[in-house]
């Protein structure tokens, strides 16, 4: 395994993150129009260098034909969404919305859990844990949303900073084995315990111990805390990263499956600095009263056209 030494104040940064109180999210900073990314695909690159800011291509939940980062107005007629769901029905065919393929079935345990969450409606229902700002687990945190991810490699650790929900994840690369769930020092938690190693040019991350309160995707697919998740990162070019996943969760699903690869593009410049993006109940409740209540439940918001 080769690790490039990346000189950041990671210790202080990590400590700051750990102690950061939940504050109302900062509003956006002034920014000019995002500048188009220069063509860098011909540049040489080290496939073992993953550090940088990456943004999912094709949208976390949009059609692969569009670059939703710069969705223009008037809309680009070439930018077409693959499916157009009828009103009132969320479309879970978009990439990132559904990571469980046809042919993989929930066990009775998983089905009961899924149905206990507003009849398995997923994000369109009332049981979305993110609605009350519960942490997002992996894979949802970065497949379902178009927020950038910053990867920071230092000796012995690889950090993944997800802008969505101000989430960070540390992957131990010092050769330690993946513990058993029962041996986790703090038990199962929201993002689990991760170790990583290189296999050729593939950085393979194994995670165990994500509690069963998180969803894999927007469809609301559940998992058990015994799930073994493997994400494989492969830098395919200077500006491109592919990430694939394999899921092993016999308590929740009748077979293992793989998902991906999903592509990520390297992003640079001030527009792509990771911003503070906490989910706060105050913001969520305000939004619900002004938008979600009227739109989804027909609740008249004060002052809005009846």
């Amino acid at each position, binding site marked *: 395994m080769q690790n490039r030494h990346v000189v950041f104040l990671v210790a202080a940064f990590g400590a700051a993150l750990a102690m950061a109180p939940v504050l109302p999210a900062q509003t956006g900073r002034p920014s000019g129009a995002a500048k188009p990314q220069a063509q860098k695909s011909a540049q040489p690159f080290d496939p073992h260098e993953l550090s940088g800011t990456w943004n999912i291509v094709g949208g976390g939940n949009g059609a692969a034909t569009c670059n*939703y*980062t710069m969705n223009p107005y008037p809309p680009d007629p070439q930018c077409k969404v693959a499916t157009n769901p009828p009103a009132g029905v969320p479309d879970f065919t978009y990439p990132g919305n559904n990571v469980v393929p046809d042919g993989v079935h929930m066990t009775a345990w998983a089905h009961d859990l899924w149905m206990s969450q507003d009849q398995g409606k997923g994000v369109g229902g009332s049981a*979305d844990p993110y609605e009350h700002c519960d942490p997002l687990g992996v894979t949802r945190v970065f497949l379902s949303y178009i927020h950038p991810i910053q990867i920071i490699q230092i000796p012995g650790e690889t950090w993944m900073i997800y802008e969505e929900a101000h989430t960070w994840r540390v992957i131990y690369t010092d050769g330690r084995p993946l513990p058993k769930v029962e041996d986790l020092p703090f038990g199962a938690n929201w993002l689990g315990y991760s170790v990583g190693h290189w296999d050729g040019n593939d950085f393979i991350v194994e995670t165990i111990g994500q509690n069963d309160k998180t969803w894999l995707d927007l469809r609301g697919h559940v998992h058990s805390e015994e799930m073994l998740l493997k994400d494989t990162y492969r830098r395919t070019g200077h500006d491109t990263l592919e990430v694939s996943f394999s899921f092993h969760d016999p308590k929740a699903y009748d077979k293992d499956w793989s998902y991906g690869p999903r592509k990520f593009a390297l992003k640079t410049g001030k527009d792509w600095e990771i911003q503070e993006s906490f989910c706060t109940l105050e913001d969520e409740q305000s939004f619900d009263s002004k938008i979600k209540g009227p739109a989804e439940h027909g609740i008249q918001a004060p002052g809005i056209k009846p």
Partner: protein
Amino acid sequence: MKTKLVFMVASVLLVSAPLFAHHGRVGYDNKKVLTLKGTVTEFDWTNPHVQILFDAPDEKGVTQHWDVEGTNPFGASRAGWTKNSFKPGDQITITFHPAANGLGVGLFIGAVTASGQKLGAGTSGANDSNQ
């Protein structure tokens, strides 16, 4: 009372970002698009979604108040928005998917600001998304 607005309604393919963040988009009529000219009353540059609140006359000339959600501020910023893109009193043209139930909320597609800048939907947030 649900007033039916008939302004430049067109059935188009969904070309805007799905805005399918964790709030979902089940309440909007994805096949209906409204484009209105109105006056901004408030601009919320906040998480989880920016909101443009504006007044616009309906087909009977009666002023109606709307609240249209966009993406999160960061996605919007990367698409050229700023916290000053909309200010109370601004005359704008705004295109959006209205709520299927007729209430005065909507899902942003695009707008022309008072300065003439064209703004798209930007990146998507959580299922909310545009996210």
